[in-house]
């Protein structure tokens, strides 16, 4: 760019604009890391709770979900470090971040509302509602990144939400695990692969 001449044509202007916009659009910042972390955390919690409930009839089976706090703390540290290294913020990344924030707020609010309003009766509602919520950010992120595995993952969450209405409590819990395999773990590995292949280019 420093080999710049004063006399240049309109076509050259257009070529600069096109090339710079293309370079900025090629910023693919999603490496799938957090999808894998959360995917495995939810999968482990779901399977452990299922086993505790079905085979051991353990009363405090839902305590296993406290493990998600560890993932949350890890996420905060990871994102802070990532933000420090960040050279550019795209509108895409910003929109996706907002979507996941809305998801987190909705998760907390809906779980609180269900628990507060319905008390013990709400148990059977958690899985269908949470699976419905899982689908929303996954589907939207897939649409924004034009990444089909996430779109499909979102749809699978919604289908599992409906299916869970017809399942017993313990199998409802297992559906969280199935959902995150389809929505976060498999797309997470594919995002990682895509990110690494772009970085290698």
């Amino acid at each position, binding site marked *: *760019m*420093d080999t*710049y001449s004063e006399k*240049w044509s*309109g*076509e*050259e*202007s*257009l070529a*600069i*604009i096109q090339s*710079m*916009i293309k*370079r*900025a*659009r090629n*910023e693919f910042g999603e490496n799938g890391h957090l999808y894998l972390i959360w995917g495995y955390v939810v999968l482990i919690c779901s399977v452990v709770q299922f086993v505790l409930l079905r085979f051991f009839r353990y009363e405090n089976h839902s305590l296993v979900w406290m493990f998600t706090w560890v993932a949350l703390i890890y996420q905060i540290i990871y994102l802070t470090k990532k933000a*420090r290294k*960040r*050279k*550019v*913020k*795209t*509108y895409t*990344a*910003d929109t996706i971040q907002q979507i996941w924030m809305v998801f987190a707020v909705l998760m907390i609010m809906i779980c609180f509302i269900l628990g507060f309003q319905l008390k013990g009766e709400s148990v059977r509602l958690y899985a269908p509602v949470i699976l419905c919520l899982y689908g929303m950010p996954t589907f939207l992120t897939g649409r924004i990144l034009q990444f089909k595995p996430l779109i499909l993952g979102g749809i699978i969450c919604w289908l599992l939400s409906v299916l869970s209405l017809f399942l017993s409590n313990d199998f409802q819990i297992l559906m969280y695990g199935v959902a995150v395999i389809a929505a976060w773990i498999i797309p997470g590995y594919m995002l990682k692969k895509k990110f690494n292949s772009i970085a290698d280019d």
Partner: protein
Amino acid sequence: MTDFKDLDPVLHSQLRLAVISLLISVKDADFTYLKEKTDATAGNLSVQLQKLKEAGYIEIEKSFRDNYPLTNCRITKQGIKAFELYVNNLQSYLTIKKPSR
């Protein structure tokens, strides 16, 4: 009728146009990113960023990250308008130019 000379002189510079084209596509970008994408030298880029700032087309935020100075840039509303006008003028200039070829 748009003449080539009617194009905004602030944007009608290869490096400044490249910077604005990058900044219109992202929310914000730091100096290193702009330098990498435009292949410019640090000195030249600094000068051109200053000119864009003086024209009110970009905002420059200076801070420190891990004891290193950090320069973050983002396009302003005025910059977006100027870029849109530049592209429109460029389009009409190219349309007028085409038949005479």
